[in-house]
C-alpha cells in the first residue's frame, strides 16, 4: 500500500525528471555533424569542453555573478523580511506589504530587464541627470552592457526569492525568544546577530538554493544586460544548442548540473533544511 501511494509521484519524477536528464547524459556522448546526430560513444564533447580555456573563464564569470547576486539579494532580502516580520505590527499590513513586493512579478522577466536599458544607457536617465547636474563630463558607460548591469538585473529579478523564505522563517520565531534576549540585556544588533540570524538559517539556505540555481542557469539576463559581451555557462550552452550542436550542449548541461548539485549539497551540509521545515 505505501508503494501504491508513492507511485504517482515516482512515475511523474521518472518521466519528467529522470528520463530527460538521463537522455541528456546519453546524448552528451553522441557525435554530430552539421545536420545530424550520430548515436555513438565518444568523449569528444567533454574533451573539447575541458580543453577550452573559455570554459574555465565562463565558469569563473558565472560563479562571480552568482556570488555577487547572492550577497546583495541576501542583504536586501534579510532587511526587507526583517522589516515585514518585526516592524509591521498587524498581520493585515504584513500581508498587504508582502503582496506589494510581488507586484513586479506580474510582468515578465524580460520586461523588467528591458526597463533598465533606458535608465542606464549612454543617453539614459541616470547619465542625463549626472551630465545635467555637472557631476560628470562624459556619460558613464559602465552602467549598461556591463557586469554591473547584469548583477543589478539579477538582484532586481531575484530578491523576492530571498525575501519569501527568510520572511517565512522569521514568522516562525517565537516572539518570547526575542523578548528573552532583550530581558537578558541584548541590544537590537546583538539580538539579530545571535537570535534572529541563526533561526533564519533555513530560510536563507532555501533562498540561496533558488538564487544559485537561477543565476547559474540564466542566459537571457546575461545576454541582454551585457549586450552579448559577457558569457555565462548557459549562454555558451544556448549558443551550441542554437547551432544544432546538441551533444556538445548536452555535455555542457551535464557538467553544469554536476557543479550546481555540488553547490546545493554543500549548502545542505551547512544547514539542515529538512530538520527546520
Amino acid at each position, binding site marked *: 500500500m505505501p508503494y501504491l501511494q508513492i507511485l504517482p509521484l515516482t512515475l511523474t519524477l521518472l518521466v519528467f525528471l529522470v528520463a530527460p536528464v538521463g537522455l541528456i547524459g546519453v546524448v552528451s556522448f553522441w557525435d554530430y555533424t*552539421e*545536420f545530424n*546526430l550520430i548515436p555513438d560513444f565518444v568523449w569528444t564533447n567533454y574533451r573539447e569542453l575541458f580543453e577550452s580555456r573559455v570554459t574555465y573563464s565562463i565558469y569563473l564569470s558565472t560563479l562571480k555573478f552568482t556570488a555577487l547576486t547572492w550577497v546583495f539579494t541576501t542583504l536586501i532580502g534579510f532587511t526587507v523580511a526583517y522589516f515585514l516580520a518585526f516592524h509591521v505590527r498587524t498581520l493585515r499590513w504584513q500581508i498587504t506589504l508582502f503582496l506589494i513586493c510581488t507586484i513586479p512579478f506580474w510582468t515578465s522577466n524580460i520586461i523588467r530587464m528591458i526597463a533598465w536599458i533606458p535608465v542606464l*544607457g549612454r543617453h539614459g536617465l541616470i547619465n542625463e541627470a549626472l551630465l545635467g547636474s555637472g557631476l560628470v563630463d562624459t556619460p558613464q558607460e559602465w552602467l549598461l552592457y556591463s557586469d554591473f548591469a547584469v548583477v543589478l538585473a539579477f538582484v532586481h529579478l531575484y530578491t523576492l526569492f530571498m525575501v519569501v523564505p527568510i520572511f517565512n522563517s522569521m514568522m516562525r520565531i517565537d516572539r518570547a525568544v526575542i523578548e528573552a534576549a532583550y530581558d537578558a540585556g541584548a541590544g537590537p544588533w546583538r539580538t539579530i546577530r545571535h537570535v534572529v540570524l541563526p533561526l533564519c538559517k533555513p530560510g536563507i539556505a532555501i533562498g540561496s538554493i533558488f538564487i544559485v540555481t537561477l543565476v547559474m542557469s540564466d542566459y537571457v539576463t546575461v545576454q541582454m544586460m551585457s*549586450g*552579448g559581451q559577457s558569457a555565462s555557462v548557459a*549562454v*555558451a550552452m544556448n549558443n551550441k544548442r*542554437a547551432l*544544432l550542436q546538441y551533444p556538445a550542449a548536452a555535455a555542457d548541461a551535464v557538467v553544469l548540473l554536476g557543479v550546481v548539485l555540488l553547490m546545493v549539497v554543500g549548502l545542505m551540509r551547512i544547514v539542515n533544511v529538512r530538520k527546520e521545515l
Partner: protein
Amino acid sequence: MSEDKSKDGPANASQSGTLSRRKVLKAGVALAGAAVGSGAITGFPMVWAQNIKNVTLRQFGTGVSNINEIAKQAKEDLGINLEMTALDTDSTAQRVVTQPKSFDIADIEYFTLKKVWGAGNLQPMSIAKLSEYDQIVGIFKDGKLTPDSNIAQGTAPHTVSFVESPGDTTFAGGMTDWYTMVPTIYNADTLGIRPDLIGRPIDSWTELLNPEFRGKASILNISSIGIMDAAMVCEAMGEIQYGDKGNMTREEIDKTMEIFTEAKKAGQFRAFWKTFDESVNLMSSGEVVIQSMWSPAISKVRSMGIPCIYQPLKEGYRSWGGGLALSANLSGLELDAAYEYINWYLSGWVGGLLMRQGYYSAAPSTSKAHMSEDEWGYWFEGKPAQADIINPFGQKVESAGAVRDGGSFYDRMGRVACWNSVMDENRYMVRKWNEFIAA
C-alpha cells in the same frame, strides 16, 4: 526569445518518420476531395484553382519576410491559408533538420540551405512548373548579375540552387531542371553609421575596429554572418589575405578571431546583437555609432528622425539571399498549392512589398507594376526621390530629394565581395566564434 519555444527533443533529429505525415496528407486530400465532390453535387462550378482554396500551408522563416501582409494577400488572391512562424536565423536551420514534419514551406537563406539540404528534409522543384522562372535574375541561375560580372566569394546562391534529380543530397555543378529553392529576397549589406555622431566620411570596413570608436561599435552575433563581416574588416586592414572568405582555413579562422578578440578585450564593442530590434535600439539610442546592420533597420532608425547611413564601402558589400524551399513531406494537393503560392510570390505583389522596404525581389521586373514610378526610381534605380518615400507599413522613411545609399540595384548588387556562407570548417569556426563571444 523565440528560441525558447522550439524545445526539440534530441531524439527527434534521428527519426525520419514520414509515414504518419503521408497518412495525414492523404486524409487531407481525401477530405478536400470530399469537399469538392459535395460542392459539385450542390451545383457549384468547379475549376482547378478552387481546389487549393482553404488548403493550409505552414511556413516558417526569419522575421524579414514572414509578415502577415503576405499571408493576408495570399488568402485574398489564392484562397490558401498561410500559417507563418518567425524564427531567428539559427533556429530556421534547426527547424528544417529536427522538425521536418512541422512545416510545408521553409523560408531560409542560401547558406542555411547548403547546411540543411543534406538532411533530406526538403524536395527540389520542377522548373517546368515555375511560371516566373524566366524573370528571375541571373544571380540565382548562373551566378552572374550581368554577363560580365564577377562571382563573389562565399556561398553564392547559384552554387546551391540546383540538383540533378529529386532525392539528391548533393548539389549539381550547373543549371538543371530541378531548383532547390526559389529566391525571393536578397540584399547587399554593409556597415550602418550615425553620421551626426561620427562627423567625418567613412569609406572602409577597417573603421569598425578603429580605436576612435572604442566602446561604440557593434557586430552581429550570428556566427555564419558575423565571421564574414569580421573577414571583410581583417582583409581591408591588410592583416589577412584570404583564399576564400566564404571557406576559410583553420589558420584564417584563428587569425580573424584573434584580431577581433584583441579588439573586444580592448573594449572596442559596446554590444553584440542578434535580432533586428536590438540593432535598431543600439543605433537609435546612440549606444553604438558604427555596426553591422541590415537595410530595413536603417530605415527604421531614420523613420524615428535619427540620421543613419547605410554606408557603401570601397571593399564592397557582404550579400545574402533567401528563398522558399519545399518540405519533402509535401505531396498531392498541398504540393500543387505550394507551387501556386510560389508562382504567386514571384508574380510581383510580394516583390513590391519587399522592395519598398529596401530588399530586392528575385524577379524585379514583375514587381515594377506594384510600385509607383517614384518608388521604383528610388529603391531600384537609385534616382532621387520625387516625393516622400513611404514604406509598406505607412511610415515615411525618406523625404523628397533623397537618394538611396549605395545607388542603384546594379551599383549595389554589382559590388558584392562576398556571400553569407557555410564553410567546410564550420564546426571549428562556430567553436572559435563562441570563444570570441565568451572571451
